[in-house]
């Protein structure tokens, strides 16, 4: 990663730290804000947070990896979340996840090589009555079908066979 970008990220982390009182109890809210701004937790940023709060690096890392919400790698430009709560699972949420995985040619938790799409599963977004549910770029959509998966992707500018082609090119 180029140094300039890194420097920029650290500056943002510093700004966030200035807005909080530096108590160990504020670790999670601070990490949440860092992720909200940078979309992920950069390694140097976590180090800086740890130093500022007087928490060992390893403890910051332990918190960042314990909670599902935190990401240690930058996500794709479009974030696709598929709900796999009980109701969604029963109504075929796993089939929807399958469809996304196949189309994007990534597994859940991964990002396409061109960093356009990242695919995640979430435990439950609380829209069980409209199962199966997806959350695409913060927009919740209910009663998703495999055909609609193609529609969602087309709406985001995805062209069929795009991901497959990219992977081959990279290999």
């Amino acid at each position: 990663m180029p140094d300039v970008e890194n420097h920029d990220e650290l500056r943002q982390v510093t700004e966030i730290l200035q807005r909080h009182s530096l108590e160990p109890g504020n670790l999670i809210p601070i990490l949440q804000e860092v992720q909200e701004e940078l979309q992920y937790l950069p390694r140097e940023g976590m180090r800086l947070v740890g130093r500022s709060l007087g928490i060992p690096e390893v403890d910051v890392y332990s918190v960042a990896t314990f909670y599902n919400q935190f990401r240690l790698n930058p996500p794709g430009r479009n974030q696709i979340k598929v709900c796999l709560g009980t109701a969604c699972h029963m109504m075929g949420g796993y089939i929807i996840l399958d469809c996304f995985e196949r189309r994007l040619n990534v597994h859940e938790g991964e990002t396409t090589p061109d960093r356009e799409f990242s695919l995640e599963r979430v435990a439950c977004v609380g829209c069980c009555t409209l199962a199966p549910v997806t959350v695409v770029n913060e927009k919740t959509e209910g009663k998703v079908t495999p055909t609609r998966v193609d529609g969602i992707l087309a709406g985001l500018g995805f062209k069929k066979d795009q991901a497959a082609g990219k992977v081959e090119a990279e290999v």
Partner: protein
Amino acid sequence: MKTAATLEVAPDQIYRDLQHAARQRLTGEKEEPLVMVGTATCGRAAGALDTLAAFKEEIVRRHLSVRVREVGCLGDCYLEPMVIIQKPGYPPFIYGEVDEGKARRLVADFLVNDDPCLEFAMAALEPNDIFPTLADYPRGFYEQRVITELCGIIDPTEIDQYLDHEGYAALARALSMDPGEVVAQVKESKLRGRGGAGFPTGLKWETCRKAPGTPKYVICNADEGDPGAFMDRALLESNPHQVLEGLLIAAYAVGASQGYIYVRAEYPLAVERLKTALDQARQRGLLGENILGSGFSLDLAVFQGSGAFVCGEETALIASLEGRPGIPSHRPPFPAVSGLYGQPTVINNVKTLSYVPHILRQGPDWFRGIGTTDSPGTAVFALAGKVANTGMVEVPMGTTLRRLVFDVGGGIKDGKEFKAVLIGGPSGGCLPETALDLAIDFDSLQQAGAMMGSGGLVVLDADDCMVEIARFFLEFTQKESCGKCTFCRLGTKQMLEILTDITKGRGKPEDLTLLWELAGDVKAGSLCGLGKTAPNPVLSTLRHFRHEYEVHIDEGRCPARMCQDLITYYIVPQKCTKLCNVCVGSCPAEAVYTRPDGIKAINQELCIKCNNCLVTCPPEHQAVVKISPPSPAEGA
């Protein structure tokens, strides 16, 4: 120090002034037509924001003097997006499934002209001579709304409306009582914690009140991690002030000066509305220093969780609030004695706190009059799965499952056969048809091998495989296990592997005994509720549906035709019409093809089992079927 006499008058008088001012601001509103659009998360998922925009646009375009207001969730989620239209001279009508087109038509026909479009009205809100009300339907008839009463009717972002509906009156009353008396009232009401375990709330408060140490803390547990439950979300999004009021009363009763509301990360809208509610309460002097002139002060903050199911457990929640990984610790000491930062802390669920204002306003006797002797009050359930009328329902404790599923829920979708309900999420269990007449309360469910849990209720029909369900729940708890206890960390992993093998047709006859043994060990060897209850879904499905496990193992087939490795899709040539092409068009993998004779067939090598062709095949043909055990027939 104030004298007792001034204390008795002051909060109530200040409150009356507040309420009067709120009502003043609301007068005049009632003469104008009003459109209320339900924009809780479930409404939004169904497109409520587009409906809202359509109403606004149409009203502006026609220069109408109509108010548009966003409200919460009425509970009938299967009809989202829902709209209530109030026009002077008419009873307020509720409309379901209002898309943009219907919205425009309602404006043109009802708001401009005088045709209320009763053909797509669902019910009227108040009794009248022209149209049935909610109470005329089985759902409304059997429901008893206490904490969901105002959900979907008031604007959650507007404190005036809550005040107008006697909101914060209970707080004013509590503040003029002795804290011990408040605890006594809650104790007398026999309110039990709605988070799942059903611990008596009054007892918890009393313990905390008597525990030495300052400061004390109150925490509202809104970390609704149970997949399949959404009542806390709906309550926070639809009526956040009710929860705040309950939390304020709890804090006053136990003598706390600082409080937190711990909300799940996955509920951004709830967080937003809670923060608005906190700001408004602060502005009106209902939160902060010297609340309602009583001398009592409390500060509240919203804390967002970060996506860990185990944080619903109270000691893990505290660890998370302190900035550590959410790993549970040993109890006792209970948080009521030594909780957040080692101080006495009361942790209550959203629903528990929502009942508190009602109990103080209407008295413990009123509350005990609802429900059963040992579990008084109502129960809020999230009905989901294969039931016709999904949504949030509130029924008195002691209602039977049959009534809940078949009357309130309207029976099984598409007239299929009932198989079981899953209650209590990953810590609960399943109840088969024989348990349908069970009256639901905390104790009866425990006896039946399930658990109230937070109130998620997922209905299953004949197409759902019980082994797959058990596997699904175990996959969830295994993933969410914090890893502290060996049995929970490794035991669930082993159980999951066995179950996965069974669903893939690789099960062995001795697996069932092993599963049963492991389940007992995991229960015995885990510290917190997550591990102690994780095997429940496996145990209850094994108890009630053992034959399904056996069929998977012995015959390699899935009776419900759900386990993907044990089925194949097949087009019955005799039923295929040749004339339509939907299955070919709907197949995302291009596995469906047309044979030279015009009949469709599936190339099994390409088939990804997405179920699309089965859904799209017109109902008059139903030519696509699932076969289990899988057969390689109909190849090239």
